[in-house]
């Protein structure tokens, strides 16, 4: 990421640990990472940069600190007022994704390849041309489209793709719609590079890339929502399970059916720590999580008393033990998640 863009992830009031950001961007989904991701409002950015160059990232953060745009303390990093000014000055409509949460919904590498190939194949079909340089070499995408065309016609592809694109782009910001189509490859066009588009818009190539990616994801969601379309099958192959993976969903099913943690451990033959982590993740992503199934009234009273008047970020599990309270970590963490959701809803 270009250096100053990282300022977007920091706050003037709340110190934030940079390791959490790194792990969220690269889709490391431990209970602890997701909890702090919730606290820092990072969850929408899960899987946003799966192949992050960690060294470059760390160097960029160091650079921001050196320029006094971020302040570093034992609690974490905070945006300085200077950093806030920089962010406000440099930000453009292309600087940040409108729907970063879609990074969790679709495999970008596969979807991008499918999208570009789909459009190119449809375009070349319309010009009755079967001899062209293929725009994307992703073998899986090529195979998927060939397989799809064995069952559906080229005309269906062309008709649905062209209509969907038009409907989708009509509802987008016109400047962003122009950016999106500028990179498409088809019969009469080779697409423009990020650099060529950036120089025409007066932004940096990275912002072109992120904006295109954001729109590509939005288009995927647009098509996916129209399941009557045949091309929605091509979107579905690139769909990801999201934060609630199949194994977590299995735990959720049992939990919602009234099973206790001990019962779920027995049924699924998984470790306690695994099931407890599943429940934490569920609570993080489902604000309607039934906390009362785990947190009794007495637990709520005890926790409220121990942590009264303290910011959630400062809560430490060890404090319970220091005050002679025996309580499993799961309850402590679920309480913090519940209170965080409460803060968010205020």
């Amino acid at each position, binding site marked *: 990421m270009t250096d100053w863009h990282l300022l977007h992830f920091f706050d003037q009031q709340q110190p934030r640990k940079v390791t959490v950001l790194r792990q969220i961007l690269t889709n490391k989904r431990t209970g602890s990472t997701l909890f702090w991701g919730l606290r820092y409002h990072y969850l929408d950015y899960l899987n946003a940069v799966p192949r992050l160059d960690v060294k470059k990232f760390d160097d960029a953060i160091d650079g921001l600190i050196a320029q006094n745009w971020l302040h570093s303390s034992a609690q974490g990093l905070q945006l300085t007022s200077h950093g806030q000014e920089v962010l406000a000055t440099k930000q453009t409509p292309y600087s940040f994704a409108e729907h970063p949460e879609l990074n969790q919904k679709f495999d970008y590498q596969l979807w991008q390849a499918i999208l570009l190939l789909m459009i190119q194949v449809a375009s070349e079909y*319309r010009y009755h041309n079967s001899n062209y340089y293929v*725009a994307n070499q992703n073998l899986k995408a090529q195979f998927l489209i060939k397989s799809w065309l064995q069952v559906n016609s080229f005309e269906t592809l062309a008709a649905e*793709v062209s209509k969907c694109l*038009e409907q989708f782009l009509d509802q987008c910001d016109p400047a962003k719609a*122009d950016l999106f189509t*500028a990179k498409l490859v088809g019969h009469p066009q080779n697409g*423009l*590079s990020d650099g060529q588009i950036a120089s025409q818009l007066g932004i940096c190539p990275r912002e072109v890339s992120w904006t295109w990616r954001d729109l590509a994801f939005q288009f995927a969601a647009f098509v996916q929502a129209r399941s009557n379309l045949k091309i929605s099958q091509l979107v579905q192959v690139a769909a990801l399970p999201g934060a609630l993976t199949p194994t977590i969903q299995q735990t959720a099913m049992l939990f919602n059916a009234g099973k206790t943690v001990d019962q779920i451990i027995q049924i699924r033959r998984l470790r306690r720590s695994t099931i407890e982590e599943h429940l934490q993740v569920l609570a993080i992503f489902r604000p309607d999580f039934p906390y009362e199934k785990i947190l009794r009234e007495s637990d709520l009273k005890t926790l409220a008393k121990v942590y009264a008047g303290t910011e959630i970020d400062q809560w430490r599990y060890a404090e319970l033990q220091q005050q002679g309270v025996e309580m499993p970590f799961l309850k402590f963490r679920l309480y913090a998640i519940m209170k965080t959701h409460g803060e968010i809803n205020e």
Partner: protein
Amino acid sequence: MNENEIKTKLQQTLTQEFGFKDFKPGQAETLTSLVEGHSTLAILPTGTGKSLCYQLYGKFTHQRVLIISPLISLMQDQVEQMKYSGISQVVALTSKLTGQERDFVLHNLANYQFIFASPEILQNELIFSQIRRLQIGLLVVDEAHCIAKWGPDFRPDYLILGKIRQLLGQPLTLALTATATPDVEMAIKKQLRFEDDSQVIRYSIDRPNIFLNVEEVESETAKNDRLLELVTTIQGPGLIYFSSKKKADEIVEFLSRKTSLRVAAYHADLNLEDRFSIQHQFIENQLDVICATSAFGMGVNKKDIRYVIHYHLPADLESYVQEIGRAGRDGQQSIAILLYVPGDESLQYTMQIDSAPQKNEIDYYYHHPELLKDLQDENHQFLKAFINTKISLPRLESFFTKHRQDKSAALNQMIAYIHTDQCKRQFILDAFKEDRTVQHNEKCCQSGPVDVALLGLEKQEQAEPRSTIKMQNYRQVLAELFAQEK
């Protein structure tokens, strides 16, 4: 079939499958040699369509062809090219494939007639075991000069190719290169364990339609000014080579600001989609100038490049000959210009120093090879490839010492080329041990500022203004893409 029958049938295949009327120099002889069953080393100059030799062989015999190549970007370009030509059963097996893609390819390997592979991927036991199951009609070793241990282009991965050939059952083999001295020729044949009846097809590396020019300027500012003058006075399209991506980007910005030329950069920092766009814009004359680094310049497949300018001198004469070979592949008059500021060689010397691992580093990684696993830079990969050959530490250290000396000698030869008062073309032929005397004339070579009008290369007035590359309204783009009314 006798030789004449073979030649007739090859000619028919050339026309029917590839749409060409005639073979280029060396192609027919190479193919005939292969069809007659002789493993062949073909030393053919740049631009003579070496890749057609193995493509046509595959089409002629309907046999599977395994092509080993050192450059991933080149392989990808060739796969793209072959698919465009209608050869769909082609794939490149490289470290760039995702796990999913690799599994898919391995599962369907028998369906591919042309398989490109990097030497390092062939060292993967699973992959190699799958390839061994296939019937290989022709093994191709591209850029075979990389086998030469003393050569600056040496790749340790190429040392295992002889063993690979043996494990594949000594298939008929075609080794291809544009540049090979007699010593390199011997090294290739020895390393690949060529049979006694193997053949060598050698054509001169000379490209008479490329005028060779070296121009010395005082400073970088003067170089930029001269570059500006050249690109605005020489008929394009043109390719400018750089040793650094950063400088390539800077010059793109400079030329875009100072001229109305359509200029773009082409190097490793571009993502795959952008590389496709830029390359095809250039091929379709939507760009006038490409500023490239060497590996990427080699993938540019455009026949009418009129000039190649080296902003930075390359590391050796071999690279220089390969790189200027991008020009004039249509046979028309072209020009290669090397712009030199005294001291430019320090960039190459620095790159050499940075690239050569020192004794303590070699020693350390020799004893901890597992630490090289995640180091992706070329130098460490080079060291890793060498350690994989099970070489002893003293030999490894001795090799790197000699390698540093060889690279230094090669650079000195490049500098000697720059400074020589003799015919540049003769210098190159002598360097590659070609026993030929050049008939020097005004269309051969020159040091100092050249009058391009004498070569017929002055920039022509455009009959129609060239269209610049601009973003369009999305509705317009969609209408064009899908042949709809606007």
